[in-house]
């Protein structure tokens, strides 16, 4: 083979940053307008997001550090944390499995009823969580056929752990799928086909080609799904019916707040959720950066 063949370095030393700067300069608004818009959105954010968040932490420590610790170390709080974690640790993995399967079907294949499936996946976004709770009450309540059958066989779903898990799964359902569908769609099925021709079996294709290609989007979906699962209130409050046993963190906070001698306790517990929210936000931002850099690998 001769060395005449050297197409290795095609020169695309195009300076994207400089180009973008030039375009920005040509199309941007005046400094004044920019300042007003940015300042007003910052003020809005501070007022509606930052101030309440600071308030939660402030109220939590209003009875001092000891009061804060006392509120967090009660049996009820412990139970609530346990319940929230149980629901989350069941709902999130199930959503990962379901999300991978559904997005894989939707993103890589054409089939009849695809549009309907996508709409169904979005359903939990559209329905108010309270309605979801009521749906489950109707479905499993003693007035329904299913409810009677369950009662006869001594299986408790409603007002017990299973119902909390079920509603959590329901409301968190779309998060993972929604993140994965666009990624799967944009990547197409060619890499999988290439892997197959090279002799890989289905399992190898999944672990070595499909999953690595969507991992950042998957993680992003999981983070959102996790946050939603831990924060679920509306549907849980209907199916839990204020029983101490089925209190999740949000329900527990609500119960503490409603009682007369509340004090710092509800805010102390709320800091747990607030902290999770902040961590979620940070992780989400980091993932977004990661996804953007992996998308750069895509456009070839």
């Amino acid at each position, binding site marked *: *083979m001769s*060395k*005449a*063949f*050297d*197409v*290795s*370095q*095609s020169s695309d030393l195009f300076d994207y940053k400089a180009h973008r700067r030039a375009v920005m300069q040509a199309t941007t608004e005046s400094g004044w307008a920019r300042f007003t818009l940015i300042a007003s959105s910052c003020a809005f954010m501070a007022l509606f997001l930052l101030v309440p968040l600071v308030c939660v932490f402030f109220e939590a420590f209003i009875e001092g550090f000891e009061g804060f610790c006392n509120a967090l170390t009660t049996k009820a709080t412990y139970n609530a944390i346990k319940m929230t974690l149980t629901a989350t640790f069941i709902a999130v993995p199930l959503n990962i499995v379901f999300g991978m399967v559904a997005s894989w079907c939707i993103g890589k294949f054409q089939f009849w009823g695809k549009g309907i499936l996508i709409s169904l996946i979005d359903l939990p976004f559209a329905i108010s969580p309270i309605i979801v709770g009521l749906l489950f009450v109707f479905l499993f309540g003693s007035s329904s056929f299913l409810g009677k059958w369950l009662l006869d066989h001594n299986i408790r779903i409603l007002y017990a752990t299973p119902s909390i898990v079920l509603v959590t799964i329901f409301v968190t359902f779309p998060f993972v799928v929604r993140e994965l569908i666009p990624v799967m769609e944009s990547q197409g099925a*060619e*890499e999988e*086909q*290439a*892997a*197959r*021709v*090279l*002799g*890989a*079996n289905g399992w*190898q294709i999944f672990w*070595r*080609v499909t999953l*690595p*290609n969507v991992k950042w989007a998957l993680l992003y979906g999981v983070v959102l799904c996790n946050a939603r699962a831990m924060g679920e209130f509306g549907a849980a409050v209907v199916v839990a019916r204020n029983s101490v046993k089925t209190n999740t963190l949000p329900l527990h906070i609500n119960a503490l707040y409603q009682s007369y001698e509340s004090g710092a306790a509800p805010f102390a517990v709320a800091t747990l959720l607030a902290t999770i929210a902040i961590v979620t936000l940070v992780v989400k931002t980091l993932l977004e950066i990661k996804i953007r850099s*992996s998308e*750069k*690998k*895509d*456009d*070839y």
Partner: protein
Amino acid sequence: MGVEVRNITKSFGAFKALDNVSLRVEAGELVALLGPSGSGKTTLLRIIAGLETPDPGSGPVFFQGVRVDKQKVNERGVGFVFQHYALFRHMTVFDNIAFGMTVKPRKERLSKNEIREKVRALLHMIQLDNYADRYPSQLSGGQRQRVALARALAVEPHALLLDEPFGALDAKVRVELRAWLRRLHDEIHLTSVFVTHDQDEALELADRVAVMNSGKIEQVGTPDEVFHHPKTPFVMRFLGQVNQFRGRLESGRVWVGDHSGLASQCETGDKKSIASVSAGSVMVFVRPHDFDIAIQPRQERCSIPATVVRVRSAGNVVHVEMVTDSGDPLNVETSHQERDELKIEPGSHYYMIPRNLRIFPADGVGDYPNQAASF
């Protein structure tokens, strides 16, 4: 024998992508499937690979005499190079090439060191020795193409299948890579089939060319055969420029308008004798470079009177756009020398005498007007 398919039919809904196609590729041969888009060439390639299933009732597929159409794509042992390469974007060049070797069952798998050695050798072959740690996004189009090729060759396939291998590359790289691939094929002699819509690519690269049109193979032959002795009007039209006239075959003479020549000077599609073409209306084809330009009509030769409209002389040959006295456009190629001798310029009038005149029965030949200005 390398690869053989028999009586393959494939429909997508009402559309028949392949209609009873058979093809035989000898061991070590490089065959091009050439045709316009929608002719079924890629579908045929994918069926050979096992990426598509032919319609029920289709015939078998053989690799080296072994029937493989019941085997799944991952069991067939083919190398497939996708049009857009389909490199694994999250893997380095090294891992891409090694992939096929690492997914083998443990018993058949080479050791880590052996795999590394083999990848190094392949990287050397594709002249990308120092690129093992790059990602596909960091490579140029031609480099990706070569990585895709190395990845396909790494599993030592029975046959190499390439789908529009140069389709996504710019013109210069394409020509270089084409020559490189031909040299590579001469070294490793792997049975190969590639799909292309570019006649130059097919004629330059392939040992044999299968010209496809609307789900059928029109002709299989060496580049010389298909170019100089096309069997069908489609092949005639698809490979290179051609002038087309309505004509008549009558009492041993071919008539184009009012001008006629001896039919015995003509060629027919299948190298059959001219007598086998029944008298009546025929289509007459002449390639632009197959004209003698004369001042006077010639005895017993079909001499078509025409006037020069435009002369384009930038290039190896001179393109002369003409219009016949009956008003049809006519494209002619001639040498610079002849142009100077005859002083060919717009407005001058000549008799165009076809050196090579090919006739096909008129029925079933679509009426494609000569394109006046598109060489």
